[in-house]
């Protein structure tokens, strides 16, 4: 039996790697070494803020020891993964991509990363992200932008999408077999689409938020970024579960998400929301969307046009609700207890100095917007109205799901764009999330599956949305899309 070369090891899926380890083809230590090697080679992507090679090798050896005694924990045991630097990790620098958390090493581990660790996963390091997960291009990080491993025909450096940009880049560039992300308005799905990988946002409440640096509490949800739908199912299985420490975590059992993946989609009804057709959307995306319908029809689905009439209000309402919650969630970064702390002659001066220096432009913009919309005299006009819109959006979905099993839409209105673009136009940047935000507002599970390339050779994703806690149907349809699309393209970037 020959040991595969490192490059081959990094090219495996989680499922294949678990198989290989089970068969004794290679160890977790070898698998981890291979990925740490890839991490070094691809350091120019800036995908990681804090690599943790020593910790990774230690955990890989532990995994091998378990396997040797027949105590392997399942498909994630020994699998090298990357962790978005929004998850607090015990004793490991946790930055949220922000200057204000300078030097912060939490004395605790988030529930999701604890679950992954318990499942045997090996953490390679903490990945770069938009500051406090606020962004759609991974350009707002204090630790600098992340480069997409994909390059267009013009050779420009592209964004990987955001906010889970480092995680997406790491998985796409074969530095990690999978990565955790968080999705507030599209932060897993949009970078997955930009990077040619799978990104799954579970139902709100499926994964515990405990120990994840909060952006917008009523929207934040952790999920996996992987290179296959089956991998996403395995990884979600390890991440999910009720957590009494998070009041909004759902007290329901975690099914075996991978069990029914190949059951086929015959007879399922797929809704095509007509409001997701945008003026000026690139024809390639329209074409891919139509292609996606055909793929599903070919496998026995019925595709029907449906209407989600309040879709156009989702993005504006999101940009009231999310900043409102963020403005309050970020009040704790005051320089008193941890992270950056700058002196001042009074308490107010200390706050001004610390928060002025510690927060970047986008975070400040959202704190200001959020503070404004919650202020006396504006609260009813903005926050309350946005919450009403949110209810209407959720009602739209509830109604269509009385008739259909899943919804199919594009993931993002464009492919990856060049680093530096849309920087001076926040609204253009916010429009990246136009297709992902409605499902976030309704708390629904949704997934982006890589489905094709645009004329510039860049990946494009298709987006599926399902009923609350019906990740099983979501994944089953995603598997069919993946099978039909046969997406095998890979980034050729040499950073």
């Amino acid at each position, binding site marked *: 039996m020959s040991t595969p070369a490192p490059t081959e090891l990094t090219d495996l899926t989680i499922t294949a790697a678990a198989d290989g380890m089970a068969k004794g083809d290679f160890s977790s230590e070898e698998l981890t070494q291979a990925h740490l090697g890839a991490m070094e080679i691809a350091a120019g992507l800036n995908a990681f803020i804090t690599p943790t090679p020593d910790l990774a090798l230690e955990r890989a050896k532990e995994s091998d020891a378990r396997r040797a005694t027949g105590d392997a924990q399942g498909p994630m045991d020994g699998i090298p993964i990357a962790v978005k630097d929004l*998850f*607090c990790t015990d004793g490991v620098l*946790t930055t*949220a991509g922000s200057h204000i*958390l300078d030097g*912060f090493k*939490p*004395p*605790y581990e*988030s529930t999701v990363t604890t679950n992954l660790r318990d499942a045997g996963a090996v953490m390679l390091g903490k990945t770069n992200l938009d500051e406090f997960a606020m962004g759609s291009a991974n350009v707002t990080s204090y630790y600098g932008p992340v480069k997409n491993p994909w390059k267009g025909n013009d050779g420009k450096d592209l964004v990987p999408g955001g906010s889970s940009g480092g995680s997406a880049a790491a998985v796409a560039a074969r530095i990690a077999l999978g990565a955790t992300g968080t999705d507030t308005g599209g932060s897993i799905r949009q970078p997955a689409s930009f990077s040619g990988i799978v990104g799954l946002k579970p139902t709100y409440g499926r994964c515990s*938020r*405990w*120990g*994840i*640096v*909060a952006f*917008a*509490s*009523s929207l934040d949800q952790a999920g996996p970024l992987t290179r296959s739908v089956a991998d996403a199912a395995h990884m979600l299985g390890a991440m999910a579960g009720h957590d*009494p*420490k*998070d*009041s*909004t975590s759902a007290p329901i059992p975690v099914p075996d998400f991978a069990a029914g993946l190949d059951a086929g989609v015959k007879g399922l009804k797929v809704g095509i929301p007509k409001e997701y057709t945008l003026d000026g959307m690139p024809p390639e995306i329209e074409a891919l969307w139509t292609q996606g319908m055909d793929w599903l029809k070919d496998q026995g689905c019925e595709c029907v046009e449906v209407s989600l009439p309040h879709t156009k209000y989702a993005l504006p309402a999101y940009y009231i609700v999310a900043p*409102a*919650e963020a*403005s*309050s969630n*970020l*009040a*704790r970064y*005051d320089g*008193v*207890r*941890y992270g950056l702390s700058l002196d001042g002659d009074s*308490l107010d001066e200390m*706050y001004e100095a610390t928060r002025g220096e510690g927060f970047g432009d986008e975070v400040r913009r959202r704190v200001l917007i959020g*503070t404004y919309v*919650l*202020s*006396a005299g504006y*609260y009813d006009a903005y*926050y309350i109205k946005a919450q009403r819109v949110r209810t209407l959006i959720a009602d739209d979905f509830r109604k269509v799901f009385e008739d259909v099993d899943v919804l199919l839409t594009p993931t993002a209105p464009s492919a990856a764009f060049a680093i530096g673009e849309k920087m001076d136009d926040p609204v253009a940047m916010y429009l990246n999330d136009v297709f992902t935000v409605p499902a976030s507002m309704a708390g629904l599970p949704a997934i982006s599956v890589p489905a094709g390339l645009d004329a510039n050779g860049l990946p494009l994703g298709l987006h599926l949305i399902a009923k609350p806690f019906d990740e099983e149907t979501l994944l089953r349809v995603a598997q069919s899309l993946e099978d039909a699309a046969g997406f095998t393209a890979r980034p050729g970037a040499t950073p």
Partner: protein
Amino acid sequence: MSYIIEGKTGDWEVVIGLEIHAQIISQSKLFSGAATAFGAGPNTQVSLVDAAMPGMLPVINEECVRQAVKTGLGLKAKINLHSVFERKNYFYADLPQGYQISQYAEPVVGEGTVVLDMPDGGSREIGIERLHMEQDAGKSMHDQDPKRTFVDLNRSGVALMEIVSKPDLRTPEEAGIYLRKVRSIVRYLGTCDGNMEEGSMRADVNVSVRKTGETELRTRTEIKNLNSVRFVMKAIEHEAQRQVQAYDNGEEVVQETRLYDSQKGETRSMRSKEFAHDYRYFPDPDLLPVELTEDEVEAIRASLPELPDETKQRLMDDFGLTPYDAGVLVAEKETVAFFEAVVEECGDPKLAANWVINQMPRELKRSGKSIENSPVSPQNFGKLLNFVLNDTVSTSAANTVIGIMYVDGDDPVAIIKDKGLEQITDSGEIEAAVDQVIAGNPDQVADFQGGNEKAIGWFVGQVMKSTGGKANPKMVNELLRTKLKG
């Protein structure tokens, strides 16, 4: 009871409402598992949640909710089955989250009523507007270092109930009686220890004045953070006077927050409304609404102990106590418990009430003890009263005995024996003492026999003195009358 301030321009009445902040008795804080004991070293009772570490989430302590509901039921108030925690946003160094989690638009308890026992024997009903739960902030200490402020987060996250009255109070005294009554109720319920010195109960007072006969409310001011009944009453007096003077001088009263300076006996402005915080309340997305069922509320109702109003009525009905005596006894639940145990021992409720109301507080004060750590058990207290009832000791000797019981030890039998305080009921012995006094004071005898019957008291005193207070006064009295008249 009317309280009128005579101003230059006429008579003014005072309108008062109280917001009482009461710390909920519970093992742990409102949203974290940290302990809540008073007096622990700085920052020793702080969880990751209380320190607002990144990614930490609050989880409601259901015991605190039950305690709040219990309090609501004790205040005869409406329980809201659906209530919501919101965030009250403001920056301060001892507020780690940058917001306080508090109920705002939808509190757990709605309108209720508290009955006040007035000194004249009557009663007054005061409306409760609402009761809501909230978390406390930490403590900033500005006096530990010349340049820096230190922060102790032990109190951060401690569960509080804010009990808001309607503006039904009309005098400083009523406000004091109201505060004492609410404290009594929560202590009966075991939902707050009511200890104002330790800060587990404090009050904000809203005060306005208006001309007698006016029905509209005028502008009110709020005096924050008063930590004794006396300060509440004093602060209202000073603030009402200040407002009357302002109106009389043609000035306006500004809606503002004021502080009471107990040293100077005045209130002064803390911040006016134009600098008031905009707290940006919104529902806390980390918490689900609190949903109660009728069954849960009924179970709590069924667990309610007897409350002061009910106990008072029972003492009047069963023991024939006056409303005043019963009211005094029930004010503190420890007192009434002690009283009932004494009655069980001695069987004479009126005598027991008299001694528990008068002797007990006097002796506790003298010995520097409180009823919670009373050196005298109610059984021994009752035993002593039995010795009074069966003439073993005189009342005056019993007063001596009880003084010793509270200081040296609590067994009245031993003390009476030790000090030789048994009452002399031997008629021969008493007769000898009587004869001696009569023989030694011919002038006084002549005075009595000349018609001054009141002089008998003086003779009784002399006999008691010569017997060391041990002679049975009734027998002394009878013998003296017989001999002097004879």
